[in-house]
């Protein structure tokens, strides 16, 4: 039995596909779970010594040597230990090289081209016909003026609480757009605005955004940079800081915008307990139920990202939202086709019709 196994074993070394080079994969072919240990040695063809590189995985029967030099040839020796014998196999010479294109990402590229095509097409259409675009009402964005107005009437400050993500997150950039709108209204109504930040870069951006908004409505003298506060880079330290501020300052309106984690409900419930009108917006799908339960208005996922288009009402921006919607329609059609195919496959399988099932699988493979 062992002799048969040994005769059927082979080892191959090849350049790891679709990578930036510097990597060679060593694979043992013909193994079926009897391996005790597998050692990989490498020889750089400059001398006769083999250097131990690592162990063969006992699940994939592969080892990836990430320390190879591009273009340099190597020989590999693989020692396979079984219960009662040890087998040594050689392979090579092989060299690593970098690839110029990763074919496993072709589907992403195709989708990106189609989706970008939709967005760019509708941006062009919007430039030609600015009147022909409609965007549905987003109550949470319409409620910004109401919230700031209520806060002003009550003589209380307005709070803008950033989420825990940095400036590289799309949700943070969307939050800055909303902050600009809030700042304009706050400046107009001459109500104090306190902006809490988790990330110092976001704090700097927030400060500039608020300052610009105050300048635009001609109230730059009322801008107080000290109200744009940085708290901490610790999740629950930030939560405690914001909660403390809310309890002490007793805001009339609270905006929770950005990417939140477990602190979302703690913040929203504290805001609710001080009687503030709350408008939340996040791209964190897992935190949406908490905001929906505790806040008055919620921007659900993509509504946050469409905020700048909705607030600005610029045709070109609205065009991009429409293009995005068509992209969604495109995906919905594909999901629909997928559902139909999956249903057909299930029915064919239940009926045990192997010929039709094979034909179906061939078709799916072609797709």
């Amino acid at each position, binding site marked *: 039995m062992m002799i048969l196994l040994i005769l059927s074993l082979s080892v191959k070394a090849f350049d790891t596909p679709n990578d*930036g080079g510097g990597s060679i994969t060593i694979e043992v072919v013909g193994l079926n779970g009897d391996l005790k240990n597998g050692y990989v040695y490498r020889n750089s063809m400059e001398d006769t010594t083999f250097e131990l590189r690592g162990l063969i995985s006992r699940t994939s029967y592969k080892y990836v040597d990430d320390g190879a030099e591009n273009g340099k040839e190597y020989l590999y020796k693989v020692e396979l230990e079984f219960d009662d014998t040890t087998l040594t196999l050689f392979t090579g010479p092989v060299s690593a090289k970098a690839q110029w294109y990763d074919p496993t990402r072709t589907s992403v590229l195709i989708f990106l081209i189609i989706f970008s095509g939709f967005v*760019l097409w509708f941006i062009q259409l919007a430039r030609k016909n600015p009147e022909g675009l409609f965007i549905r009402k987003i109550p949470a964005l319409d409620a910004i003026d109401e919230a700031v107005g209520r806060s002003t009437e009550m003589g209380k400050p307005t709070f803008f609480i950033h989420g825990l993500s940095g400036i590289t997150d*799309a949700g943070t950039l969307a939050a800055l757009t909303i902050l600009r709108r809030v700042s304009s209204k706050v400046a107009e109504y001459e109500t104090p605005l306190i902006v809490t930040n988790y990330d110092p870069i976001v704090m700097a951006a927030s400060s500039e*955004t608020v300052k610009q908004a105050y300048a635009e409505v001609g109230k730059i003298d009322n801008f107080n940079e000290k109200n744009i506060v940085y708290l901490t880079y610790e999740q629950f330290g930030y939560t405690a800081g914001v909660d403390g501020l809310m309890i002490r300052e007793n805001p009339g309106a609270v905006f929770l915008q950005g990417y939140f984690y477990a602190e979302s409900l703690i913040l929203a419930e504290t805001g609710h307990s001080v009687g503030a009108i709350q408008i939340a917006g996040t791209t964190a799908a897992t935190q949406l139920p908490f905001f929906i339960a505790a806040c008055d208005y919620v921007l659900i996922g993509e509504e*946050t*990202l469409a905020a700048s288009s909705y607030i*600005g009402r610029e045709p070109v921006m609205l065009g991009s939202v429409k293009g995005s919607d068509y992209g969604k329609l495109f995906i919905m059609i594909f999901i629909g086709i997928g559902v139909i195919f999956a249903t057909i496959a299930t029915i064919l399988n239940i009926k045990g019709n192997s010929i039709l099932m094979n034909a179906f699988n061939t078709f799916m493979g072609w797709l």
Partner: protein
Amino acid sequence: MLQRRIPLLITFLTGVIIVITFFIPHPPFGKLQDDALVWYSIILGFSMLIGVDSLLRFHYRRIARREKGFGFSFVFYAGFLACFITGIISEIKFGDAFAEGTSFRYLYDYILVPLQSTMFALLAFFVASASYRAFRARNFIATLLLITAVIVMLGRIPIGAKIPGITPLTDWILNYLQLGPARGIRIGIALGAISMSLRLILGIERTYLS
């Protein structure tokens, strides 16, 4: 004019290059995204100084003006100085402030971590109060939500497994009723993010420039 054009040009070039590098593993493209993240970390490190400066000024102002609860600002200064001094001493003495047995590690393990855990534990009470409001049976839809929530909660606790049919019903609710809309929201967010990125790259979205 240049003040706006230069940042827009940098955004355009960076955006296009990062998108291209996603498809090209060959050096120098393949590692550009990782390099950009390293640069961001370096900038973030320096920007921390701005954050700390803001925080120190904020609490100084509170103390100077004797604002409500200004005593907590003294606690902040005490905590800040304790962490700063022990951090520096530990780093000099052990080469790593987080090494076992350092005074900084002691502060971290026995003050900061329990405080964070306490804040996290508050979530249980907030979940209870929020659930109470969300699940009030005011109308048909709210009642439906209440019934579904009760079934799911029962299905997630050990006693639920003893009630016939509850566990499969819970799994069905989570895998079909809940998962479909959740995926819809996630797809929407992903497409919205791509759309926003395109607006940023093309210079249509400029609010971040202030």
